[in-house]
C-alpha cells in the first residue's frame, strides 16, 4: 500500500511538471503579452510600456522566466497576480468559498435527484418514465447554460420578481437567508445539466448490476424486493459512481465558467476567465496547477475509496 502511494506520488510530480511546462509555453509563446491591454490608455507611450516590462522582468528570456517561476513554486511561492499584486494562493483562496458554496449545493442536488432518477428509470426500463427522463436528460445536456441562465433570470427576476438576478448576497445584508435566496437560481441551473449526467450513469450502472447472477440468486432465495434493491443492486451500482465523483472534484473546486459569469458569482470560474482576459499569467498558471493537483487527488481518492468498498480490487 505504501509502495503504491509512493509510486502514485512520484507519477503525480512528473505529471505536474509536464503540465506546468506546457501551460507556461502556451501562455507565453502567444504573441502580445500582459501589457498590451494598456496600449489604448490615453497618453500611454511605447516608452512607458517598455520601462514597465523591464521593471516586471517580462523581457527576460522565457526559459529564465520559467525556471524562476518553477524555483519559487517549489518553495511554495506561487507568485503574485499582475492585476492586484496579491499572492496567487491568496487570490485563489478568496474565490474558493463562493465556488464551493455554489458547486457544493448544485452537486448535492444533482447527485440526490440524479441517482434517484437513474435507479427508477433502470427499474422501469421501457416505461413512460424511462423515456421521459431520457428525453429530458438529452434536452438538458443540449441547452447552453448561458442561454438557460438568462432565460431563468428573465423569468424569475424580471418577469415574476421572485428571485434576485444574480450575485452571491446583497451587500450590507449577507444573512443566511440572503445567501440561500441568491443560491437558488444558479445552483438549479447548474444542477439541471448534472442531474442529466448523473441519472444517465446511474441508469446504466443499475441496469448492469440487475443482470448479474447474484441479483437473481438474491431474488431466488426469497429476499424482500426492497432489500434486494437497496443492498444488492444500489450498493453495487454506486461503486462506479465513486470514480465519477472523483472526477468531479476538480469541477467542484474549479468552478463553472459560464454560470458564474451569468449570475455574477465571484468564484473560481470567473477568476480563470478574468485571469485569461487580463493576461494575468501568474494567476492562470496558479489555477492550472491547482486544478491539475485536484485531478490527481480526486482520482487517487476515488481509487482508494473503490478499493475500500469493493473487496475484489487490491491496490499493489
Amino acid at each position, binding site marked *: 500500500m505504501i509502495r503504491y502511494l509512493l509510486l502514485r506520488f512520484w507519477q503525480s510530480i512528473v505529471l505536474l511538471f509536464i503540465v506546468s511546462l506546457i501551460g507556461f509555453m502556451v501562455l507565453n509563446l*502567444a504573441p*502580445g503579452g500582459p501589457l498590451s491591454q494598456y496600449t*489604448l490608455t490615453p497618453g500611454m507611450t511605447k516608452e512607458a*510600456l517598455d520601462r514597465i516590462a523591464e521593471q516586471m522582468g517580462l523581457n527576460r528570456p522565457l526559459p529564465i522566466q520559467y525556471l524562476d517561476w518553477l524555483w519559487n513554486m517549489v518553495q511554495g511561492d506561487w507568485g503574485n497576480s499582475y492585476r492586484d499584486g496579491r499572492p496567487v494562493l491568496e487570490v485563489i483562496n478568496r474565490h474558493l468559498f463562493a465556488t464551493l458554496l455554489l458547486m457544493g449545493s448544485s452537486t448535492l442536488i444533482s447527485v440526490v435527484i440524479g441517482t434517484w432518477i437513474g435507479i427508477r428509470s433502470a427499474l422501469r426500463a421501457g416505461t413512460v418514465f424511462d423515456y421521459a427522463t431520457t428525453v429530458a436528460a438529452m434536452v438538458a445536456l443540449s441547452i447552453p447554460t448561458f442561454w438557460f441562465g438568462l432565460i431563468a433570470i428573465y423569468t424569475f427576476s424580471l418577469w415574476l420578481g421572485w428571485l434576485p*438576478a*444574480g450575485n452571491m448576497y446583497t451587500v*450590507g445584508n449577507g444573512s443566511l437567508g440572503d445567501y440561500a435566496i441568491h443560491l437558488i437560481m444558479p445552483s438549479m441551473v447548474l444542477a439541471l445539466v448534472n442531474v442529466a449526467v448523473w441519472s444517465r450513469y446511474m441508469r446504466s450502472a443499475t441496469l448492469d448490476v440487475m443482470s448479474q447472477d447474484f441479483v437473481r440468486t438474491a431474488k431466488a432465495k426469497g429476499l424482500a424486493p426492497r432489500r434486494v434493491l437497496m443492498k444488492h443492486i444500489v450498493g453495487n451500482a454506486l461503486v462506479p459512481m465513486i470514480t465519477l465523483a472523483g472526477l468531479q472534484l476538480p469541477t467542484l473546486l474549479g468552478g463553472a465558467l459560464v454560470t458564474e459569469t451569468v449570475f455574477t458569482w465571484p468564484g473560481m470560474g470567473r477568476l480563470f476567465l478574468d485571469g485569461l482576459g487580463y493576461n494575468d499569467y501568474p494567476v492562470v498558471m496558479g489555477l492550472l496547477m491547482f486544478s491539475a493537483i485536484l485531478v490527481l487527488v480526486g482520482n487517487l481518492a476515488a481509487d482508494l475509496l473503490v478499493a475500500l468498498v469493493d473487496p475484489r480490487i487490491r491496490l499493489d
Partner: protein
Amino acid sequence: MTEATRFTPTRRQALLLMGAAGVTTLVPSLSGLGAARAQETPSGQIVVGFSQEPTVFNPHLLHIEVDEGVHYAVFDPLFDVDPEGNFYPLLATEVPTVENGGISADGLSWKVTLRDDVTWHDGTPFTAEDVKFTLELMVDPDFRSWRRTGHEHVQELTVVSPTEITWKMAKPFAPYASILASTFIVPKHAFDGVADKNEAPFNSAPIGTGAFKWKERVAGDHIELEANTEYFGDGPYLERLVLKYIPDLTVLYTQFKTGDIDVAGLQWITPDNYEEAQTLEGKEVQVVGTATFESLTFNMERPQFQDLKVRQALYHALDKQAIIDALYYGVPQPTETYMPKESFYYNADLPKHEYDPEKAKALLDEAGWAPGADGIREKDGVRLAFTNSTTSGNHLREQAQQFFQQSFKDIGVEMTISNLPPAVMWGDYWMLSQFDSVVVGLNTLTGPDPDTSDYFMSTSSAAKGGAGQNTWVYQNPEVDALLKQGGELVSPEERRPIYLKIQEIMRADLPFLPIFQYATIRGWKEGVTGYEANINNRIDTWNVRSWRWA
C-alpha cells in the same frame, strides 16, 4: 469639515426635499430620512455596476480605467476638471494660473498653496510633503509608475511650508495642468519604511483624503467604501458606496433593470438596449459624448497609402452614417476630427465628409490608379489592396469592416480582413506599425488638454525608434512645429488657434479616416442626484462626493 462649503438647505428647501422623497416611491426609505436630516449625516448607499473589476488602488501604478472609479472616491488631486473643462481646486486653495501668480509668465515656475484643514483617512494631517512625495514617486526609477509624462520635467521641488510647494519646469509644458488634475495625491507616511513601493500594504488598502474611505474588497465581486465624515469639501452625502463588478454587459443591463444596481457604470448600456432603456419605469437614461473617436487608421509607410488622392477616395467611399445607424443604433455622432465636440479646442469648421463613390472613382482615375485584370486598381506595380485589422471578437467592428470591405470593392480597392486577439493586436503589431490599416477607437488627449504630441509628432513613432504612439508614422513638419508651439503656451485663448489649425491639417492629410465620436449611454435610478457625465475623465465616480438620494 468646513460648514461654509456644505449645502445647508433652508426650511423651505428641506420641505421640498422631503416632498420629493415622498413621491418617488422607488427610493429606499433610508434615503428619505437622509434628506429630512438636512445632510448633516451621510445616509443611504448607491451601488454602481462596472463591467470590469477594479484591482489597482494605488493610482500611480499601471492600471485600467475602471480602477479610477475607486481613485476618484478615495483620493483627491490638487485640483480637478469639470465637464466644461474648467479647473476647480480640491487640495489646493486655488488653481495656479499666470493671473494669480501660481505659474510664472514663461510657464516655468509653479507655486501651489494647499488647504490647511485636510487630514488623511487615518487622521494624519495632509501637508506639502505628501505632494512632494507623490510627484517624486511618479518618476521613481524603481516604481512601476503608469505615467511619467510631464512629471519628468519637474525640478527643484521645494516644500516652502506645510501649505506651500514650489517647483520649476525644465521646459514649458502646457499639458501639465491637465496632468496634475488627474494626479491623485498619496500619503508619504504610508510608504515610510516600505522597501518595495510596488508592493506596499497601502496598494491594497488605500488611505486617501477623499470623500470615501476604504472599507473592504470582496475579490471578484465588489468594493465597499464608506463616508469620510471628516471630508474637507462638499459631501459626502452617502453613507456607503458600493462598486459592483458585473463582468457581462447583458447581465449589467439586466441588473440595472431589476434595480440590483443603482447606476449602470463603466461600459454602460449597450446601444442595442438604448431604445428599451428609455422606456424603463423609474430610470433615467442619457447619451453622452466621450473623448474617444473611431477611425480607419492607415500605416502611412505602406506604398498604397502614400498618395493623398487614395486616402481621399477611400473616405468618399465610406458611408459613415449608414454604419452609425445600422450598427450603432444612431447613438454616436459622425466627426471629422480627433477632438471631441465638447472641447474648447474643437474645430467646427472642417470640411464635411461626403459619401460619393463616383467621386471616389474619379479621384482614383485622376491619380492614375487603373483597374487591373481582376478589377483591382493598380499603379506602378502597386496593387490597391491592403489588410485591415482590429480586435477579434468585437462584433460591431467586425461588421463595420465587412461594410468597408464592400464599399471599397465597389471602387476597385481590395481590403482583406485579418483580425487578431487583443493581446496580439495591441502589442508590437500596433505599436511598431506592422499593420496596413486598423479600425480603432482612440483618445489622443490628456484630459481636457488638446496636446497630442505623443500621437502626431513625427518623433513619436515607435517604428522609427520614437517613444510615443504615432502608429500612423505620420510625418508633417508643420504639425510638429504647431504642436511644439501649442505645448509651450499657457493661455487657452492663445493656444486655441494652433489646435484648430492642427485639426484642419489632419483633416486635409487624412492619415486616418475619422468615422465617429464615441458616445456612451448612461443610466441611473430616478432619485439619484448629482450624477453627471464628465468628458474630461474616464469614469462615472469623478464627482461621487456630491451624489445623493433625492
